[in-house]
């Protein structure tokens, strides 16, 4: 159906929590809506081959309690409570968030940080896109108009992976003005496999190599975490909007990164 209607301004309707408000503001006026709600095959949420597979109809609320044991389940449960408000989480979908690609989407940050694989299907076939190649700009992705984002696979994190998440928004439930998700392991008192993802601060969430480099192989002390946070603050190309100018966004990225790392290392 999407193959048929995409060319005539057809759009997928998932949870409707982003699309419907934009339609209410008359900013989006799709000619056709293809409602994927109720398609049982898209409601799947399970672990297969070392990754958590999240179908297109899995709602945010599915993560209110850990979807799996271990750090990944705990990470998703920590993060989900920062997404909007309870009623919105009952409708909005994980995959819809990625397709919508708001710069401040928590799930986009998770996907970018842990390295999600994103599966797109169309009448032309199925392809898998790595998170690092998926986001292209503010609310733009590698998805073609006729592609359905069918599922997202998140690699299951090893038992000894630690994570820390920290977000700043003006009010509880608002989109983040800046947020950081960090994952790492500690081996013999040194940081191993650090991943530092920053969201809400640039056109799309991404890992910050400069911050990761400041951590790798070092002891998790105050000076190292501070250096990584400073590196993240310098590395970003900050968005500017009514809430935050560039300098303030850098300040926030610094604070969020410090705190996320402190939580990961605690």
């Amino acid at each position: 159906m999407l193959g048929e209607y995409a060319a005539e301004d057809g759009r997928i309707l998932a949870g409707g929590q982003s699309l419907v408000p934009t339609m209410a503001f008359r900013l989006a006026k799709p000619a056709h809506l293809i409602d994927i709600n109720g398609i049982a095959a898209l409601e799947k949420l399970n672990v297969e081959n070392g990754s958590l597979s999240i179908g297109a109809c899995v709602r945010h609320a599915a993560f209110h309690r850990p979807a799996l044991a271990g750090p990944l389940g705990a990470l998703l449960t920590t993060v989900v409570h920062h997404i909007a408000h309870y009623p919105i989480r009952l409708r909005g979908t994980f995959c819809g968030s990625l397709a919508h690609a708001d710069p401040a989407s928590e799930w986009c940050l998770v996907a970018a940080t842990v390295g999600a694989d994103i599966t797109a299907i169309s009448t032309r076939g199925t392809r898998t896109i790595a998170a690092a190649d998926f986001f292209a700009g503010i609310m733009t992705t590698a998805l073609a108009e006729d592609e359905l984002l069918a599922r997202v696979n998140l690699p299951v994190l090893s038992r000894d992976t630690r994570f820390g998440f920290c977000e700043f928004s003006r009010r509880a439930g608002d989109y983040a003005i800046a947020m950081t998700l960090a994952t790492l392991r500690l081996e013999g008192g040194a940081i191993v496999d650090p991943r530092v993802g920053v969201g809400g601060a640039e056109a799309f969430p991404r890992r910050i190599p400069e911050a990761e480099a400041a951590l790798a192989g070092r002891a998790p002390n105050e000076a190292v975490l501070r250096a990584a946070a400073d590196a993240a603050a310098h590395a970003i190309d900050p968005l500017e909007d009514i809430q935050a100018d560039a300098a303030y966004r850098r300040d926030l990225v610094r604070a969020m990164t410090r705190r996320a790392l402190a939580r990961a290392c605690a």
Partner: protein
Amino acid sequence: MAQPKQKFVGRSVLRLEDRPLLTGAGRFAADISFPGQLHMRVVRSAHAHARILAVHTADAAALPGVHAIWTAADVAHIPPIDFRLTKLVGLEPYRQRALATDRLRYVGEPVAAVFAESAYVAEDAAELVQVEVEELAPVLDALQEPQAFADGLRSEPAVVRKGFGDVDAAFRKAHTVVELDLTVGRHSGVPMETRGLIARHDRTRDVLELYGAAKVPHWNRAQIARMLGRALESVQLYEGHVGGGFGVRGELYPEDLLVCAAALKLARPVKWIEDRREHLLATNHSRQQSHRVRAAVDADGRILAIDDEFFTDQGAYLRTHAATVTDLTAAMLPGPYRVPAYRAVGHVRLTNKTPCGTYRAPGRFESTFVRERLVDAIATRLDIDPIELRRRNLITAAEMPYLRTLGTLGTEIELDSGDYAGLLDKTMAHLDWPALQRRLAQRRAADELVGAGLVMFVEKTGLGPRDLARVSVDGDGAVEVVTGAASVGQGVETVIAQICADALGVDYAGIRVVHGQTDRIAFGMGAFASRVTVMTGEATRIAAAKVRARAVEVAAELLQAPPDLLDVVDGRVVRTDAPEGPSISLGEIARTLAASPDGGLCAESWFQTDHMNYPYGVHAAVVAIDRGTGAVTVECYLVAYDIGKAVNPMLVEGQLVGGVLQGLGGSLYEEFRYDERGEPLCVTFADYLLPTAREAPPVDVLISEDAPSPLNPLGLKGAGEGGASAVGAAVAAAIDAALGMPGAVTALPVTPRKMREILRQETL
């Protein structure tokens, strides 16, 4: 006759309003529909300032379902919207018309109106109306020199001057002069229910009916009748449930005239429900002011004089309130302090932004911020404890009533009663202020940014000049109170029923209280200025007392008993000496009076007063600042408020807590911002940040009744605004304390970004 007992007044009885609201029987504007109704959509200016060259409606008119499209020419017969409360003259040229004629003066200004078979078609058609313009440079700063508003008119319609004493002499002999520049941001009341209006012309009776009225139905009725050239009796306004007013809802706006004129002209009912974006663009804004204030003080910190020059950013037109906010700011600035000499010069300046009106505690939120910042600055300068400094300057209980020699809203300000120092003592004891300060000092020593602020204020409530109420008992004993009050959700029915119940001798729960219906009572002032409990309450009490006296008089005859041995208890006239003896119900008395010349058991009464009364209070806030983000968290908040007599303490508390939340909005979150072209940036709830339950601190309320008003027998004062008045001042003081930087806050709202800028100065 036995004295009436206070059985209901003073108790936190449950709200009579809640049954329909909680059982889904609420009837708000959008719930009202009539067969055959048309839906109105207003086409609004997309330009802050422009000359209209042409309005093209042909494309829109061609859309199926569009019934009519109006532009300025269609409403040329309707005069501009008048002022309700002003004694200033010469302001007429600055009034707004129903539709813009040749200039557009703010984004959101109505230019055309579409009437269609459905709200959706109307909205589609409105998008097709093209307004051809020549853009003009907008004025966006009230501090900028006034510009030409129209031929021969400047964009400063009025300068309000108030004062007394020899200010210049006081400054000459002052030990110290303290000077501040302070600003309050543009924000406003944002009720949960947006505006909504449904007009219908009943051609059978030739009555124009308007549903969705609020706040001031009687005044609006008179204006609509006059402006549309109709007899008063042929226009009726009906108030349904109102989802919040806060001063902005219920004023007479262009849309009120458009729906009424269209219902008459198009001979179909016309419905208009404002959407949220429209609300944030079109409904009154408020608060935006810049002050340059200075104080002359002696060596002990005693205030010798205050001199304030300020600028109100009034937006594009003078609406119904004209210069009320500026006037109240100037009049209320001295607050609870003895100020021997005072001068206020308030410039009312027009800008190309949404026009402004009054918002809960108009002029007090602003002037309390200014005055209390000034007092804190004096304390810092002279190194005197800020609370001690306040004590030295407070007007004492012995000085009451205290004539301020200032006037506002047509009244002389005479502080009627109060023990300001007494309430300050109570508050400090309640908070255990020294212990609180010790705890905060310990936390600061551990590198936390925490602090407490405490400020004082005087409110004004119970604005006259009069109110009318009619109390009647029917043959079944049912009691009805018909008032000219309005309910914006504050509990009018409950409070009026409580007052009536005690004065009459019946249960409050069975009393029907009518408000906001112009066909039920000829006079009504409505709900504003925290006036209903005082004014309508006292009119009701007098009327109910008359009914009681009449009932006792009749019962004395029927029961063959001396009137002084009779009492009215639970709706029956009983003998006080034999409570179990023969008695007679009010219903029976009403039946015997049905054929009498008074037309039954009923009475109508006026209450008149030339003065407002003046409750007062203390606000205290404890805040914590996040060094990394600049976010300010209000950890806890206290309002101490002397209300004279609380008819229903639960409702008083609700009013105060709600007011605090709105005050916190204006202090930390809410601001209508504009870009350099006059484009509004906050037109959704994603950008106009209302505090939510998650941001609400625990609010402690201390209600005191030390200073009943001598102006009415129950001692009533109002409760509507004191929760909001001092929040900006208290939060600012607490932030200063947390930072250890006195005077750090000079502008509201304190956003995290601004806070970070202040913190950068701290670390320099």
